[in-house]
């Protein structure tokens, strides 16, 4: 392998291309996140009714976070089963925590 410099550079070129492709996805992800942020701020500044605005901005936050996790933090790549398990367990416990702390003041 080491003596065959030709195949090494071919391999490198292949990976460079692959990285470039990934980078394009990342930039697209970034554009979508900025768009979601703009929509969320726009909705609040436009004084749309709270019953409509709050669920929408919460869903957009969740989608943005999914973009971050799956593209920027590479959860979409193979070999990420355990990290996904870890973070989803965290999210599950987080959900229960927020549910408990918010419902406790409603009664």
């Amino acid at each position, binding site marked *: *392998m*080491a*003596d065959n410099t030709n195949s*090494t550079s071919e391999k490198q070129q292949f*990976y*460079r291309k692959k*990285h470039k492709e*990934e*980078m394009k996805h*990342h*930039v697209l992800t*970034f554009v979508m*996140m*900025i768009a979601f*942020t703009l929509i*969320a*701020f726009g909705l*609040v*500044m436009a004084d749309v009714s*709270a019953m409509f*605005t*709050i669920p929408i*901005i*919460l869903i*957009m*936050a969740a989608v*943005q*976070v999914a973009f*971050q*996790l799956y593209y*920027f*933090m590479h959860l979409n*790549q193979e*070999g990420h089963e*355990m*990290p996904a398990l*870890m*973070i989803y*367990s*965290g*999210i599950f*416990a*987080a*959900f229960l*925590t*927020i*549910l*408990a*702390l*918010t419902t*406790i*003041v409603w009664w």
Partner: protein
Amino acid sequence: MADDMLKSENLPQNPERATLEGRNKFMGFWFFLGGETVLFASLFGTYLALKNSNAQGPSAEEIFGLELVFIMTIVLLTSSLTSVYAMYHMKNNDFKKMQLWIGITVLLGLIFLGFEIYEFYHYVHGYEFGYTTSAFSSAFYTLVGFHGAHVAFGLGWFLSLMIRNSKRGINLYNAPKFYIASLYWHFIDVVWVFIFTVVYLMGKVG
């Protein structure tokens, strides 16, 4: 294995998972992020429970200014992208460009922190909204301040990696370290997405 993997030009595709030590740290770091999620959830839950208990002090609607929060959000989101660029150059084994993009990330992080310090200063001196003013103010400063402390820690992490490895170049020893630090930076951004939505936007909507 003819290729010497320790040399930077033969860096494996996923250096963070190429060795047993790397895999363990990679897994451990995600476990840590799971724990951080719960930690921030308890602060978010506390904030949500107390956000209307302003004890005649200023309310969320009175003090929050969306312009500043919008700029801070864009700055932090952009810094997330610049750290992705840094990892892109790391994978292409371009050490100088990686250092440059991490430097830009650190700069954006500093701008973010500066805005946050200005914001807190403004609340304390312009609105008499101190840490002990009300249950709302305590919950707010704890949640947002804790995130700010994470940003400060992330900046220190990036800077120490940059300085420590400035003459080393990329190798199988330090590439996973840069990768993990960038994961941490993205996580900070994840938390901020919820802060600007739950604290500032929902605070303005009422």
